[in-house]
C-alpha cells in the first residue's frame, strides 16, 4: 500500500482528508523545485509511466508527461489515434500489452465513465484517472484545491461556487468530492437542464441564480460548456446562456475583493467567461496549469515512489 492508503487514483473520493492534504503538501515542495536550475529529480528513475489517452487532451497529457519526466520516469505516450485502437483493439487487450511492457503506472483518459476502474483490474501498476467520460478527473480537483489553498491559505470553510455545465463535467464531480473532504462549502450553479439527476444527494448546495451566489463566495469556478457532449438542446442559445450564467466584468465586480476566478480550461471565451475576465488579475487560469504539474508530480511520487 502506498503512503496515500490507495494503490490507484480513480476518484477524488478515494482520498481521505489526510491523504489529500499529504498530496497538497508534497505539491508545495514540488513547486519549489520548478524554480531551480536543474528541474529534475531522480526519484522515479527506472520507472515507466504510460500516458494512455483515448480522448484528445493537451494540457492534461502534457502536464502528466512533464510531471513524470521531472521525476526521471520514462514516459510512453499512447494515443488512440494512430494506434492499434484505431484497428479495433479493445481496452483490455491494450491493457495486457501495457502490462507485458512493464508499465509501473498507467495514466488513462477515456470517453467512457468507469474505464479506469476496469483497467485497474487488468494491470499490475498504478492506474491514475486523467478523466473518464462525465465521471471524474481527480488530479484536476487536486490542482484546483492546491490553487485555492495557495490563494486563501486554507480550504476548510471556503465558499466555492462551481458554475455551468455540471451535467457533463467530471471536473465538477471530482471537485465536489474533494472540496467536501477538505471542509469547503460548495454551491453548484447551473440551469436545471445542466444538472445531473441525483445532484441533491451530492454534498453541495444547488442554485439557479448566479447573481445571488456571487457576492458571498471566496472562489468562483467556471466550467466549460461541453458542446461535444451535448446531443440535446440544453439551453435556448449561446447568448442566452452567457447572459444568465456567463462571467463578465460586471459580475466580477459583485464578487468579494479577495475572491478568485478559476477555469479548468479549455475555455469557450465569450460563452461561460468573457476574455476580459479570463485575462484579468482575478483569474488563476494560467497558474492552474503550472500548479497541475506540481500536483501530478506529488501524485506520482506518492503512488510510485514507494514499495510496490
Amino acid at each position: 500500500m502506498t503512503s496515500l492508503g490507495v494503490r490507484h487514483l480513480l476518484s477524488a473520493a478515494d482520498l481521505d482528508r489526510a491523504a489529500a492534504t499529504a498530496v497538497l503538501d508534497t505539491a508545495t515542495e514540488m513547486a519549489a523545485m520548478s524554480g531551480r536550475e536543474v528541474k529534475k529529480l531522480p526519484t522515479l528513475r527506472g520507472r515507466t509511466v504510460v500516458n494512455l489517452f483515448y480522448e484528445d487532451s493537451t494540457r492534461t497529457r502534457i502536464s502528466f508527461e512533464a510531471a513524470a519526466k521531472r521525476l526521471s520516469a520514462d514516459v510512453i505516450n499512447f494515443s488512440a489515434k494512430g494506434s492499434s485502437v484505431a484497428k479495433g483493439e479493445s481496452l483490455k487487450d491494450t491493457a495486457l500489452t501495457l502490462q507485458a511492457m512493464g508499465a509501473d503506472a498507467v495514466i488513462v483518459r477515456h470517453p467512457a465513465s468507469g474505464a479506469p476502474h476496469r483497467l485497474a483490474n487488468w494491470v499490475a501498476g498504478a492506474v491514475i484517472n486523467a478523466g473518464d467520460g462525465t465521471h471524474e478527473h481527480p488530479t484536476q480537483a487536486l490542482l484546483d484545491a492546491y490553487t485555492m489553498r495557495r490563494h486563501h491559505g486554507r480550504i476548510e470553510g471556503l465558499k466555492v461556487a462551481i458554475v455551468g455545465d455540471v451535467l457533463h463535467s467530471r471536473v465538477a464531480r471530482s471537485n465536489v468530492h474533494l472540496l467536501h473532504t477538505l471542509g469547503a462549502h460548495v454551491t453548484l450553479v447551473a440551469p436545471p437542464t445542466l444538472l445531473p439527476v441525483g445532484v441533491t444527494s451530492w454534498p453541495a448546495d444547488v442554485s439557479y441564480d448566479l447573481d445571488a451566489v456571487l457576492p458571498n463566495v471566496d472562489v468562483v469556478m467556471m466550467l466549460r460548456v461541453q458542446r461535444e457532449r451535448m446531443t440535446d438542446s440544453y439551453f435556448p442559445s449561446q447568448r442566452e446562456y452567457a447572459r444568465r450564467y456567463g462571467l463578465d466584468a460586471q459580475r466580477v465586480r459583485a464578487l468579494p475583493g479577495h475572491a478568485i476566478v478559476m477555469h479548468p480550461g479549455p475555455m469557450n471565451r465569450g460563452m461561460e467567461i468573457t476574455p476580459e475576465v479570463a485575462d484579468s488579475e482575478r483569474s488563476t487560469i494560467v497558474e492552474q496549469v503550472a500548479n497541475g504539474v506540481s500536483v501530478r508530480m506529488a501524485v506520482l511520487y506518492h503512488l510510485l515512489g514507494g514499495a510496490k
Partner: protein
Amino acid sequence: MAHRAATNPRSEPVASSDPPVGASGQSNDQALDHSPGKIILRAADLSRIVDRIAHQILEKTGGARDTILLGIPTRGAPLARRLGERIEAFEGIRVPVGTLDVTLYRDDLRLRGTRAIGPTDLPVAGIDGQRVILVDDVLFSGRTIRAALDALADLGRPRQVQLAVLVDRGHRELPIRADYVGKNIPTAMDESVRVLLAEVDGTDEVRIVGQPQGRGQA
C-alpha cells in the same frame, strides 16, 4: 544563549546510566518521550557539544566566511540554526542557514515507502562557490549524506562540502565521514539512536534504544 557556563556543572555525567524511562516501544515521534532506552546526552551536554562544533567550524574554516549551514530535516534543521546562532554569538559573523530535504534523492524509498517531503530552503544568494556545511543529527549508514550530495549537485556548485553531525553511531555503508562530530556513540546494529530537540520534540536529549526502529535513522 549566554548562560552555558552557569548551567553546565562539570559533574553532570555525559553518558548516564539511568534505567530505561517508560515502557512503551512505540516508534512514532510523538511517543518518543515515553520510549525506553538509555540517556546518552542531556540538554546541558547537547548545548556544550553545539558550542564546541561552532568553535570547530570557526577554527577549521578560518572564520566561517563564504560558508552556509544546511540542515537536513527534520532534526538537522534546528541543529543548523543553533550552530548559526552560536557562531554569531562567538564571533559576530552571520552565517546563512538553510534546510535541504533529501527525501526525493533517497535510494531506499522502494524499501521503506514514500514519506512526507520536508522543506528545502536555500539562502537567497544560492550555494555556488560557497562552503556548504551539511548538518544532521545522526550519521549511520551514510546514505542520507549520499542523497544530500546528489541534491546539492542539482542546486549548484559549492566550492566545498563539509559535514557536521551530532552523533556518529558507526556502521557506515558508504565511504563518507563527518568533518565535525558531536559524539561518537558505538552501537549495535539492532540498536537505534534517538535524538530529541526542543524545537521538534520539546526537550533536548539523546537516547540509545535497544529495539530496531523503522525510520528516522541516517
